[in-house]
């Protein structure tokens, strides 16, 4: 029974990471690559680590370490993804030609990397100057 669970967890984790690796090659632009990679890496790493946790149920120290690593993966992965994506947008990385909508265009204030919300548009007359890239 335990063997079956370990097998399922390991296979799913390896498949997820494989798909993320293929996704890096296949996706057409930077944001999509980032989008595919970060989540799949978190999920795949989490699945492999939980397989290790199930395998070492007798040794409590291994299980607690595995759980702690999963916790910190979940905590730190999105922050890294957010910062990388934001930096890419600020320095003006191009988007794929199939992109159908971009609400962030022109929302950055001049000489600043913090976008406005667009809720009080009258103070800047609607659209602001896009960042110098």
């Amino acid at each position, binding site marked *: 029974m335990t063997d079956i669970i370990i097998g399922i967890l390991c296979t799913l984790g390896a498949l997820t990471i494989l*798909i993320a690796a293929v996704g890096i090659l296949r996706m057409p*632009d930077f944001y999509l690559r980032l*989008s595919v990679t970060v*989540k799949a890496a978190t999920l795949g790493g989490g699945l492999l680590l939980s397989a290790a946790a199930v395998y070492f149920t007798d040794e409590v120290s291994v299980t607690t370490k595995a759980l702690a690593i999963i916790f910190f993966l979940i905590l730190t992965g*999105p922050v890294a993804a*957010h910062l990388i994506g934001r930096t890419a947008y600020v320095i003006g990385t191009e988007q794929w030609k199939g992109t159908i*909508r971009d609400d962030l265009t022109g929302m950055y204030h001049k000489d600043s990397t913090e976008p*406005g919300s667009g809720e009080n548009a009258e103070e800047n007359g609607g659209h602001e100057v896009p960042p110098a890239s």
Partner: protein
Amino acid sequence: MAKQFLMNLLLAFIWVALTGALYYSNFLFGFGVGFFLMWVMNRGGTDDRYFTRVPKVIGFFLYFVYEMVKANIQVAYDVITPKYFMKPGIVKYPMNAKTDFEINMLSTVISLTPGTLIIDVSEDRKVLYIHVMYLRDKEQFIRQIKDGFERRLLEVIR
């Protein structure tokens, strides 16, 4: 709230000490027994927020896992088949979350679901800019996040 949670933890430890078996399953079972006991003894009590919140936390966790697996399958299908089905776009999402902690949790949860990625938060903290992979309709997407993740998350946190 915190007092009841600590009390529940203490009951779980007492259960583990009495049964003498330090396993996760036994600890969780003790936690469940303690929760049930406290719930029984609090019937008609004034402060019952803790007892509605614990099932909501479990429900939120299960919902999150379900959404994550669903979105992963969608993305994986797009990666391994030759044609692109995606319609990427950046959406402005007006959020209900107010404090820093709520915004942090909400953006973590949204970032962890495949296909959505937080690009930026506006400086007055009213709006999130989300990069979406499968954007069919903006209003529908916003409604989906509002009714799904944000409502459940705020119910758990507040």
